[in-house]
C-alpha cells in the first residue's frame, strides 16, 4: 500500500511541484494550504510523513509542527520543513519543535524525494 504524505504550503505552485514528484515516486499525497488546514487533514487519515512550509497564514509551520508533535497519533510521524527560511535561528526552532529535516526552497524534487524515502523507511 502506498505511503501517504501530507504537504502543507500556502503556495499552490510549491504544492504542485512537490505533489508531482511524490506521486511520480508512488506516494499518495494530501494537500493543505496552511497549518490549520493541515491539522484538519490529520484526523481520519493515516499519514506517514508530513512536509510543511514555515511562513504561512492562519497557522505557521512551527506552530503546526508543535501541534503535530502534541497529537497522540502523530507524535512520531516524521516532519520535513520545506521553506524559504534560511536563518539558523528558524532552523533551530524547527529542530526544537521536532522537525526531522530542513529543505530550503527552491528545491530539487529528487533531493526532497531522497529525504522522504530516508525518513519514511526509518
Amino acid at each position, binding site marked *: 500500500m502506498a505511503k501517504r504524505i501530507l504537504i502543507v504550503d500556502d503556495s499552490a505552485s510549491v504544492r504542485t511541484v512537490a505533489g508531482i514528484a511524490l506521486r511520480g515516486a508512488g506516494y499518495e499525497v494530501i494537500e493543505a494550504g496552511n497549518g490549520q488546514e493541515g491539522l484538519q487533514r490529520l484526523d481520519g487519515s493515516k499519514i506517514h510523513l508530513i512536509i510543511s512550509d514555515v511562513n504561512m497564514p492562519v497557522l505557521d509551520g512551527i506552530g503546526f509542527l508543535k501541534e503535530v508533535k502534541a497529537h497522540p497519533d502523530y507524535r512520531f510521524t516524521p516532519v520535513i520543513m520545506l521553506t524559504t527560511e534560511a536563518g539558523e535561528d528558524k532552523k533551530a526552532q524547527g529542530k526544537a519543535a521536532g522537525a526531522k529535516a530542513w529543505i530550503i526552497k527552491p*528545491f530539487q524534487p529528487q533531493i526532497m524525494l531522497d529525504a522522504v524515502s530516508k525518513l519514511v523507511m526509518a
Partner: protein
Amino acid sequence: MNDVDVQEVSASQRAQANPLLPLWARQIETARSQSETAIVALTARFSAIVERIDAALGSGQGGAGQPDRVAGIRRSESDLEQVIGALKAIQQSRNQLAAEIRSIGAYTEELHKLASEVDSIGFRTNMLALNAAIEAAHAGESGKGFAVVAAEVRSLSNAARETGKHITRKVSVINDALVRIGTTNEQVASRDEAAVNAADEQIRGVLARFAASTRELSEAADRARTESRAIKDEVCESLVQLQFQDRTSQILAQVIGSMQKLHADQLSADGSQSAAELAERHVEAMLNTYTTTEQRQNHDGVQSADIAPQEVTFF
C-alpha cells in the same frame, strides 16, 4: 515638550504622512497577486502536461506492444516455415515416386531379356524339332510316330517364340508408358521445386520486410518515448524554476505589510516619536521579519546572489 508642542508635532507628522505609501502598497499587491495567479495557473498547466506525458508513457505506446509484435513475427515465421516444410515434403514424396518408376523401368529391361530368352529357347527347340523330324524321316515307318511328336514340338516352339515376341512388345509398351510417366513426373517435380523455392524466397522476403517495418516502428516509438521523457524533464525543471513565485510573493508581501504599517503609524502619530525614530523602528521590524537570504543581503546592501537549490539538513 509640553502638550501643545506634542500636538503640533503629531499634527505635523500626520500632515507629512506619505500618501504614496498606500498607493505603492496597493500597486505592488496587485502585481504580486497577478503574478501569483498567473504562476499558479502556469504550474497547473505544466502539471497537466506532465500527467498527460506520464499517461502516454505508461500506456505502453510502442513500449509494452513491442514484445507482442516480436512474438507475432516469430509465430508468423514459424507458421510459414511449416507451410514451406509441408511443400518440401510433397516434393520429396514426388521424388520417391519418380525413383519407384525408375526402378520399375529397370524391371522391364529384365522382362525384355526374359522374353528374348523365351524366343531363343523357342528357336533352339524349333531347330531341335526340325532335326528330330529329319531323323524320323530317315527311320522310315518306325519313325512316323516320332515325326508327329517332332511336328508338335516345332509347333510349340513356334508358339513359344510368338509368346516371347508378344511379351517383348507388351513390355516395350509398358516401358514407353513408364518413361513418359517418369518424364512428366520429373517435369512436374522440377516445376514444384521451382515453385517451392520461389515461395520460400517470397515468404522470407515478406517476413524480412515485416521485421524491418516493425523495427522502424519500434525505433520510432523509442524515439517518441525518449523525446517525451526529455519534454517531461524540461517541464519538471520549469516547474522547479517557478518556485521563485513563492519567494517573490513573500518578499513583496513583507514590503507591502511594512508600507501599510508605516502609513498607519504615520497617521496615528502622537508625537512621542520623531520621524527618524519611527523609520528606525520600521527598519528594525523589517529586519526581524525577513525570511529569505536575499532579503537580508538587500538589507545589508549586498548584491543578492542567485538562489540555487540546496542540500537537506537532517536533524
